């Protein structure tokens, strides 16, 4: 499985539909403080099944929905989609035969929450099953967020142990 693109709409500061193509294997993300770089990282964690609002830097899950700026009103729906190239057929389970696999997560302000795999409504469990064995997932080390390094540095021995256990 190889990541082709990330589609973000209404998630945090990405109020407009944004299509992020990944141009190569070593892609730098740059920009001034506060422009939205870590929000992209949060978006990927979120669509992979993150359930902790705190780890997404919010107080509640609805904090990920664009909540307005001096130039725009708040909106009521956030969605993030990861599109993978699966032409090598490595993805496990029932999606192995698809040449392209899309994982999408939607949240609306009234609390309606959905996961979709190739546009089929799925449960979070199905997403985690899809990712099993690929190294992806909310507790994987595929996303190392701002502050993760400090957490490792400050960690007590029991906490280091849980980092190891998460990876197992």
């Amino acid at each position: 499985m190889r990541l082709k693109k990330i589609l973000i709409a209404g998630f945090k500061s990405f109020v407009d539909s944004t299509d992020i193509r990944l141009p190569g294997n070593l892609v730098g993300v740059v920009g001034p403080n506060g422009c939205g770089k870590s929000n992209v990282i949060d978006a990927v964690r979120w669509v992979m099944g993150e359930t902790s609002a705190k780890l997404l830097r919010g107080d509640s899950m609805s904090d990920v929905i664009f909540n307005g700026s001096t130039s725009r009103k708040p909106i009521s729906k956030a969605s993030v989609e990861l599109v993978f190239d699966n032409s090598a057929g490595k993805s496990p389970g029932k999606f192995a035969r698809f040449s392209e696999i899309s994982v999408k997560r939607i949240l609306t302000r009234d609390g309606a929450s959905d996961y979709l795999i190739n546009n089929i409504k799925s449960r979070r469990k199905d997403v985690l099953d899809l990712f099993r064995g690929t190294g992806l997932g909310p507790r994987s080390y595929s996303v190392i967020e701002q502050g993760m390094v400090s957490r490792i540095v400050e960690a007590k021995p029991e906490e280091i142990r849980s980092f190891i256990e998460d990876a197992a």
Partner: protein
Amino acid sequence: SRTRFKETFDKINAGFNRFFPELFGGGKAELFLITDDLLTAGITVMARPPGKRNSHIHLLSGGEKALTAVALLFALFELNPAPFCMLDEVDAPLDDANVSRYCETLKRLANNSQLIVVTHNKITMESMDRLLGVTMEESGVSRIVSVDVGQAVEMAVS
């Protein structure tokens, strides 16, 4: 189970052992189980940057601590290498020599996974194949643009 944990621990330790000298240009590091009880033992992180004495991670300098943690994070990632790895500003406290070695390691890892690297560091930017710029021309609204390195320096200065 005990065996499963020990296997995982040993693999991660081997990776940590390998990434540390690559990132530091020398020295060595290792994880240690605090007790014999494989089901509950905590783990300490010991590191010896080049020319220094072996010590607990807590006793290293700010940049040495961060780079040691990066070595461990790379080992954790490599246990189950995903199609991509996203890194958010891990190079912030590093000096130029350490950033350069970190970039060499990124290039090596990029042979097998797609790396997405958020950074403010010019050396890191110059090591990337391509750059995506995030802008906020309109207040509070993020957009993505493709940039080259020269533009990136300008963009960071918003």
